[in-house]
C-alpha cells in the first residue's frame, strides 16, 4: 500500500499556485488566504510561521482539502489535486497527505480505544480488521508507546504527549508521503515538546516523509525546518532556506518577528518592542503592502502597489519593495544581510 514516487526527486511533492480562500461574513469578506504560491520539495520540512490571523492554519486546511479553495491550483507530484479525470482523485490524495492537529484530545474519538482510532483509516480503505490492528500495533511501537500496554486505552487515559504520539501514529497509518503538522507541539510542556520533536525527526527519516510544519514558535520552526515561509495577513511575505531567513531576513516583518522572541539571557533583555500595535484586521487589509501600517520603512510606493516577490537568490524570496531593484522605494535593492 505504499505509494510510488512519480516525478523523481527534482519534482516538488506539492506545488501550490496562487491559492485563495475567502470567508464571507455579514457585509464583508475575510481574505484568510489571498494568493499564496510555494513548493514543498520531496523529503524536506517546510516550516510556516506567522501570527494569528495570518492564514497559516487555513493554508493547512486547504492543503488537506478540508476546505475548498476559492482560487488557485495544487499539484501533487505533478498532478492536479481533486480532479478524478486528469489528476489525483480526492480519496487517493487524502491517503497520501495526512494531518496532525494541535488539540490532541479533540482530534481523537473519545469512545474508541486508540488502536481502533489508528486502524480506522486502513479499515475504511479496505484492510481487514486483523491487519489494521497489526498496523496499529506497529505504529504504536514506532511512536514509542508499547502496544501491549497502550493499545486498548482510551484517549482520556493518556497524557497530552502520549495523545499527540497517537495522533502522529494515526496520521502515518496509510503510509502517507506528506504530513501536515498544524502546531503539533504547541499545547505540550517543554520537556514533552522535545520528546515529540525528536520523534518527528526519527519518523521522517524512517518512513521517508515530507513535512509541512506550522507553528507560531520561531525557535521550534528553526530547529525542524529546511525551508521556512513567513506569512502575514493571508500572504507569504518571505520564504527561503532556514539559514537565509534566520540569518539574513530581508522583509521588515520577518526581522521584527525574529527580534520579538523573548531573550533567554537576562543580560540581553529587549528594551524596545520591535513593532507597535497588533496585526490589522484581515477583513479590511491595508492597500498596497499589507505590512506598511506597521513598517518603519513605509513609503508612497508601499501604499499604492502590492510588492511582488523579489528573488534574492538561492530560493530566497521576499515580498518587499526594498528587496526589488527599481521598485520606486528609496531603499530599493539595498536590502542585504
Amino acid at each position, binding site marked *: 500500500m505504499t505509494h510510488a514516487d512519480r516525478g523523481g526527486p527534482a519534482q516538488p511533492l506539492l506545488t501550490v499556485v496562487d491559492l485563495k480562500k475567502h470567508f464571507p461574513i455579514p457585509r464583508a469578506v475575510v481574505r484568510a488566504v489571498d494568493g499564496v504560491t510555494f513548493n514543498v520539495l520531496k523529503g524536506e520540512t517546510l516550516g510556516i510561521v506567522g*501570527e*494569528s490571523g495570518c492564514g497559516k492554519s487555513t493554508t493547512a486546511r486547504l492543503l488537506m482539502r478540508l476546505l475548498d479553495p476559492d482560487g488557485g491550483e495544487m499539484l501533487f507530484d505533478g498532478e492536479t489535486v481533486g480532479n478524478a479525470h486528469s489528476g489525483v482523485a480526492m480519496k487517493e490524495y487524502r491517503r497520501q497527505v495526512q494531518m496532525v492537529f494541535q488539540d490532541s484530545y479533540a482530534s481523537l474519538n473519545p469512545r474508541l480505544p486508540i488502536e481502533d482510532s489508528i486502524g480506522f483509516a486502513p479499515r475504511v480503505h479496505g484492510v481487514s480488521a486483523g491487519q489494521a490492528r497489526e498496523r496499529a500495533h506497529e505504529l504504536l511501537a514506532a511512536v514509542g508507546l508499547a502496544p501491549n500496554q497502550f493499545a486498548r486505552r482510551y484517549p482520556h487515559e493518556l*497524557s*497530552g*504527549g*502520549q495523545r499527540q504520539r497517537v495522533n502522529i501514529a494515526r496520521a502515518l497509518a496509510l503510509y502517507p508521503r506528506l504530513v501536515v503538522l498544524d502546531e503539533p507541539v504547541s499545547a505540550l*510542556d*517543554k*520537556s*514533552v*515538546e*522535545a*520528546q515529540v*520533536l*525528536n520523534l518527528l*525527526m526519527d519518523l521522517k527519516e524512517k518512513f521517508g516523509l515530507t513535512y509541512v510544519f506550522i507553528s*507560531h*514558535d*520561531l*525557535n*521550534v520552526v*528553526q*530547529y525542524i525546518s529546511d525551508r521556512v515561509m513567513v506569512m502575514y495577513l493571508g500572504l507569504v511575505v518571505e520564504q527561503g532556506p*532556514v539559514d537565509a531567513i*534566520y540569518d539574513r531576513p530581508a522583509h521588515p516583518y520577518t526581522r*521584527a*518577528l525574529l527580534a*520579538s*522572541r*523573548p*531573550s*533567554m*539571557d*537576562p*543580560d540581553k*533583555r*529587549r*528594551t*524596545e*518592542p*520591535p*513593532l*507597535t*500595535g*497588533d*496585526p490589522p484586521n484581515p477583513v479590511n487589509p491595508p492597500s498596497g503592502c499589507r505590512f506598511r501600517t506597521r513598517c518603519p520603512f513605509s513609503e508612497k510606493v508601499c501604499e499604492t502597489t502590492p510588492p511582488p516577490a523579489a528573488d534574492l537568490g538561492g530560493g530566497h524570496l521576499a515580498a518587499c519593495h526594498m528587496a526589488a531593484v527599481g521598485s520606486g522605494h528609496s531603499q530599493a535593492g539595498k536590502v542585504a544581510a
Partner: protein
Amino acid sequence: MSAALKLEPAAPLVKLRNLTVRFVSRDADVAAVNGVDLDLAAGESLCILGESGSGKSVTLRALMKLLPKKAVVEGGIEVAGNNVQAMSESQLQDFRGSTVAMIFQEPMTALDPVFTIGTQIAETVCRHEGISRSAGMARALELLELVQIPSAKRRLAAYPHELSGGLRQRAMIAVALACRPKLLLADEPTTALDATVQIQVLLLLRELQEKLGMGVIFVTHDLGVAGEIADRVAVMYAGRVVEEGPVRAVMKRPLHPYPQGLLGATVHAGLRGQRLTTIPGAPPSLENLPPGCAFAPRCSLAEPACTVAVPEARKVGADRMARCIKV
C-alpha cells in the same frame, strides 16, 4: 531599579510558609501544592516557572484566596501584613483590587463583555476609593494612557470585543492597576498573545512595575518570559519549589536536575541538526505522588536515597535554594 526603595528591612510583601493545597473529592485527593515557602520583597519581580500541573497557578490563587471551597488550604499566607487565610469575605473584598490584583491569560473571559472598558475600570476605583463616577472615569482615562492604549479617550467607550487581543490585555492590566495595588499577580498574561504583541506587553509590565514600585509575581511556563521580566525565579515541580534564586544564576547555571533538564529541552537557536536532550517520562500524578523527591523517577542522577524522604531545601550561597540531595 527598585532596590533603593527598600533599604529598611521591612517585612516582606508576600510571605508564604509551608503552603499546601489539596483538592479533595469523593474519589480523588489531589495534592496540588505540597509545602511552598516563598518571600517577595516590595518592588520585586518573581517568576514562578513550571509545567502544567506543577501547582504554580494554584499557589498564585491561594495568595488572593481565590481557590474554590473544596480546596483544602493550609499553611501561612501573609500579604502586605495581612493573614489572608483568616480574612472574612468582606475583608477580602477590600483587599482584592486595592492591595492585590491579578491579571489572567485570557482577557476576553476576564473582562465583562457587556460593559465598556471605561465602566469596568471606573467601577473598581469607585468601589475602593469611594469617589464619584465622573472622577472614576477620569481615572480610567489616565490608566488607559498609562498602559499605552492609543486614542485612549475613544477606547473608554469600547466594549472588550471591539479591541484587539493586545489592547484587551492592556485594558485588563489597567483594571488591575486601577487602585495602585502593592502586589500584582500575573497568570501567564502573555501566553495567548502573538510574538510581536507579547514582547510589547512584557516590556509594558516591566516598565509599569518599575514605575509604580509594585511587587509582581509572574506565573509562566516560558523560560524566555522569565528571562525578560524576572528579578528572581522559583521553579516548581509537582507542587514544590525545587529551585529558587536570582534570574541570572538560575538561567545560566541551574543547580537542580529538573531546571537543568528544562533548559536543555528548550529549543533555541544553534540546536539545528542536533538531537534535543529530553527529560524522559512525564510529571507524576498529583493523586499519587512518589515518596521522596517527586522528580526522582525521571532523574538521571537519582539514587536510592532520593526516594526515602522529600529533599530538604538547601541554601546555596546567600540567595539560592535547591531541593536536591546532590546540591
